[in-house]
């Protein structure tokens, strides 16, 4: 089958599933029907996504519907992320929703709402990463907000509704800035290009980026960085993030934090590429660096002082996105590659952690870390996974985030940004302290009375196990195709020939360090 058809199918499947579920009445149709459709949607996304990613990584870029959709190797990484994490959290959703229904927290119409918007959410994220039309890109980012509002507020409690309202207001307001950035880019390109109709396509603008007006492009990039940065959760636009993540159902939190933030980062990256071609890399890098460093420092402190497990994780997302931004701010092949690896690694780790927090909440019925003690005694598998997850998110080897953080340090020092590296590393130490507290205080210790012993069901553990395996795999020995595609994606970001990037002496050296570091910790 033609790859562009697969791309269309990839986009259409979750949309169709969502529409189909929306059409079914919630009262009379059994929940199993929704679950079945949900699983079908996940399966389609997983299968089509895998096929597409494999094809793009080994072959040419894929276009669909004229030039409206476009998946290059950069986007492919994110499609893969959506497919993997979407599937995992989607599968995890089934026992989670089951549990909530049994607890009486969700009624049938809310279950339907959950599944409908879950698929729609997947669709909107796929649309975001696959869009080539920059205005559609904005529309799809806006759509991700709209499709997740009811997921965040699905429980219908006052706090959930409050979180949902804040989420939608802050994000629509923030993302609207992105539209202005987009429009400025479009108007600028339309003035230069012979065919103004082509000026909406990112790939069409790219060759003309160098001729655009410098001042306008800077303004456009600032608008885009602020606008899409809101969605990505960068300080000081991150304010919706802790509220939405903490009130949403855990799988949704995982998907929001693991994937959505990264999709927004991809959009920022797309604009960064244009801006760097036009005004040179320094200005966009400074912007990213400022946003990133502020995010890391602020969020590290907040991670440290939070006692609500999901808020803690949410701030940790902010911190990690900040780190990604710092990596992009450092620039150069190593910085970009580290940023991309961090995107993937953090996506996996954070969805793992949110799913585990879901397990913990199923057992303890609270999110207060003060009340959560001795997880490993109550639910041994969950506890073990949680400990591993905490270590992973704190950036210990042999997990994926260690690789990217090492890359960040090396890249930063190589780029002469030692001061930034020192500040960020200090903040990371605070994060390590915070998660060490989680391990010592909550995973270990005596279990409180009144908590039923015994782990959650296997269906609620399998996705986490898969995720952890992937994390370790990436950390220990990065699969060759993945490493190569990260190299290619870095080439796209830097707009340099991939071969040239690959042969850049330092890059080769650092890649060796990645591999060697990973080898070194292998038992």
């Amino acid at each position, binding site marked *: 089958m033609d790859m562009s058809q697969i791309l269309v199918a990839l986009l259409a499947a979750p949309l169709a599933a969502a529409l189909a579920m929306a059409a079914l009445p919630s009262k009379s149709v059994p929940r199993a029907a929704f679950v079945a459709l949900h699983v079908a949607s996940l399966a389609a996304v997983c299968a089509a996504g895998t096929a597409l990613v494999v094809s793009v990584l080994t072959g040419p870029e894929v276009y669909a519907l004229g030039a409206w959709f476009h998946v290059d190797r950069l986007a492919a990484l994110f499609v893969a992320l959506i497919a993997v994490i979407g599937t995992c959290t989607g599968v995890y959703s089934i026992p989670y929703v089951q549990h909530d229904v049994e607890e009486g927290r969700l009624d049938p119409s809310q279950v339907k709402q959950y599944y409908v918007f879950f698929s729609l959410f997947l669709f909107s994220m796929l649309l975001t990463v696959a869009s080539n039309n920059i205005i559609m890109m904005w529309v799809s980012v806006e759509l991700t907000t709209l499709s997740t509002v009811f997921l965040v507020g699905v429980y219908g409690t006052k706090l959930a509704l409050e979180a949902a309202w804040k989420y939608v207001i802050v994000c629509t*307001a923030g993302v609207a800035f992105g539209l202005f950035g987009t429009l400025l880019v479009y108007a600028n390109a339309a003035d230069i290009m012979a065919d103004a109709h082509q000026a909406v396509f990112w790939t069409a603008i790219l060759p003309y980026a160098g001729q655009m007006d410098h001042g306008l492009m800077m303004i456009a990039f600032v608008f885009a*960085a602020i606008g899409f940065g*809101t969605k990505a959760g960068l300080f000081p636009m991150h304010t919706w993030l802790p509220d939405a993540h903490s009130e949403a159902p855990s799988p949704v939190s995982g998907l929001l934090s693991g994937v959505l933030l990264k999709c927004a980062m991809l959009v920022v990256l797309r604009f960064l590429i244009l801006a760097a071609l036009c005004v040179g890399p320094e200005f966009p890098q400074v912007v990213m660096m400022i946003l990133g460093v502020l995010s890391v420092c602020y969020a590290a402190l907040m991670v440290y002082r939070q006692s609500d497990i999901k808020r803690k994780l949410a701030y940790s997302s902010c911190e990690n996105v900040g780190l990604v931004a710092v990596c992009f701010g450092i620039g150069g092949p190593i910085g970009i590659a580290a940023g991309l690896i961090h995107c993937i690694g953090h996506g996996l780790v954070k969805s793992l952690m949110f799913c585990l927090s879901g397990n913990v909440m199923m057992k303890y019925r609270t999110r207060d870390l003060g009340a959560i003690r001795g997880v490993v005694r109550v639910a041994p598998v969950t506890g073990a996974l949680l400990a591993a997850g905490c270590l992973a998110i704190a950036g210990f080897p042999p997990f994926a985030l260690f690789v990217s953080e090492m890359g960040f340090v090396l890249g930063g020092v190589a780029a002469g940004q030692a001061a930034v590296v020192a500040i960020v590393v200090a903040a990371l130490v605070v994060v390590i302290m915070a998660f060490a507290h989680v391990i010592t205080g909550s995973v270990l210790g005596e279990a409180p009375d009144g908590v039923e012993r015994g782990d959650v069901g296997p269906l609620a553990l399998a996705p986490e196990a898969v995720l952890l395996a992937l994390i370790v795999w990436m950390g220990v020995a990065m699969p060759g195709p993945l490493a190569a595609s990260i190299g290619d994606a870095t080439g796209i970001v830097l707009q340099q020939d991939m071969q040239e990037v690959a042969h850049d002496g330092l890059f080769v050296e650092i890649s060796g360090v990645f591999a060697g570091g990973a080898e070194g910790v292998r038992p």
Partner: protein
Amino acid sequence: MLELMLLSLGLSAAGAVLSLLLMRAPAAAKAAACTLGMGAAAASLASGVAAIGSPALLANLGGPVPFADLTVLFNPLAGLLVAVISVLALVAWLFGLSYFNEYYDKGVGALGCFMNLFVASMMMVILCDNAFWFLVFFELMSLTSYMLVIVEGDEKSFKGGFLYLVMAHIGFLMIAVSFFLMASACGSLEFAAFRATAFDPALATAAFALAFFGFGAKAGIVPFHSWLPQAHPAAPSNVSALMSGGMIKIGVFGIMKVCFDLLALSGGQLGWGVLVVVVGAVSSVLGVVYALGEHDLKSLLAYHSVENIGIILLGVGTGIVGWACGNLWLAGIGLMAGLYHLVNHAMFKGLLFLGAGSVLHATGTRNMETLGGLARLMPVTAVCFLAGSLAISAIPPLNGFVSEWFTYQALIGAAMAGGIGMRMVFAFAVVALAITGALAVTCFVKAFGVTFLGKPRSDAAKAAHEVPASMRLGMAALTATCAALGLGAAWFTPIMSGIAASVLAAPAMPAAAGTALVSLETVSVTSPLLIAVLLAVVVGACALARNAANRAHGLKVDPEPWACGYAPDVHMETLASTVAAGVRGFMGPLYGIREGVNSAGAAVAGVFGRAFEAGACGQGTAPAAPSREQRARVPLSESVMSVLRSVGAWFSRLEGGDFRTYIVYIVGALVFFLALIILVR
């Protein structure tokens, strides 16, 4: 004319010496000081008037120090200032003939001596054309006026005097630094050398800014105004008139001299003018807002000096803007408006201070709340004070209106000529002037109404009597001057225009035709004389008709006002605070600014105070540092954690739960980065 000036200085010196010598005989000392002072003032008035119409005269008088000759420059601007101060001095001495009787037991001899020296030093500051001597006389002027402030000898006057001395020295230092900047760049202390040098723009701007704030401190512009309402009321009223009407004008004169004269070759930067206009606008509004809150008649008048200096600076600033843009009309009209208001303010403020002095003389109090009903007992003073109030409120056809009219025209003309930024600045200035004008009306309704109208609210007020002839004569003279400057504006305007032209070294702008005042660029005319004639005719006709009706149908006097059926009572009367409270209710934000300025001032004073204390106490009294053992007991990790926690808690306040502030953060981030773009480019 220089000879006349020297004669005047000599008479002043003689008056000072004689007054001091006759200290034991107060009446003789007073008579000697006043008569010789009046003679000096008359001589200097003549020389000043002569100088207005003559070309500039530069003369070297030699001098005792080898490195700086006493050079004088007698140009039309200096002539104007000399004339204005001479008029005030003349009237002040005249007023003093009776007024100083109160000071027989407070050292009238010293008073006469210092007042003579004060007037003479003001003249010398104006004329001096050498940086060293300028500073010397400037300092002498501050010192002698300080002596005059503390002549009352009570706590309040010492406090006001001290503040005045401190402020005057801050100003003096800034001016000195400014002059030395210029002197070191051109290698001479002669102003002639300054004006022949084209300074580096950055140096010129620094020199201008320093001089502006230095002279501004003398003039009482807003960040440096706090001394004015404390020092001026403390001095004898005729000295207050001389200080408020005359001395603070020397601050404005200094600003003009530095900008248009000393920096003539290197100056004319738009930013200077904008600075002056903005400071002027702020001073004018805050000055009148402060004034409204005052119940002390002389403090109120002193605050109005802040306001009027603001208005003068609006004109001068517009002049600088026009000069910088090469818009000769704007430069001429703006400067002319400023100069005209300078003269006017000297006249009506002198008049009002003399009026306040008369009230003080007659009742022994300056607190308006305890006065009232003086109009019946002191009709001449009341009429003069009313005329001054109308003039300072810029009500046509008196002189305040003329200069404010030109100021408005200049501001609107500047807005017409300028771009976006200029339009915003000048709209701000126009609105500030409008608020000022409206508030000034309120303030003087309060000042005049509460003091002179209604019924007496205290025994002192009931026992008031009209003041002696020499005091009445002094007030009447200034009233006449105010009226003349208003009604005869069409004749005075060309003179002012000529002075402005000489300052700018440009042809004079026509600003009057026949009896009309003309504003060319804003295509408008007005005529105080016509208004006066029409008012006289129409109001007179109305009054005659009404009186005829009264005669035909009767006119009775009912002793008590209507009070809802109750017996009227003194406590029912409207007090000054009533008026102020109303304004306070509506102008809340302005009062907020005022409080902010006050607290900022207090904070600065506190810092200085603490620094002073620290310096005085030395190192011995520092609190004992916690011992090493005590500190070691806290584990490092614990302290780090507590620091992290408290910093985190502080940061977490950023996320207070209100999502509307979150949106503001986003906008803030945007603004920050857009500013970064501007910085980068």
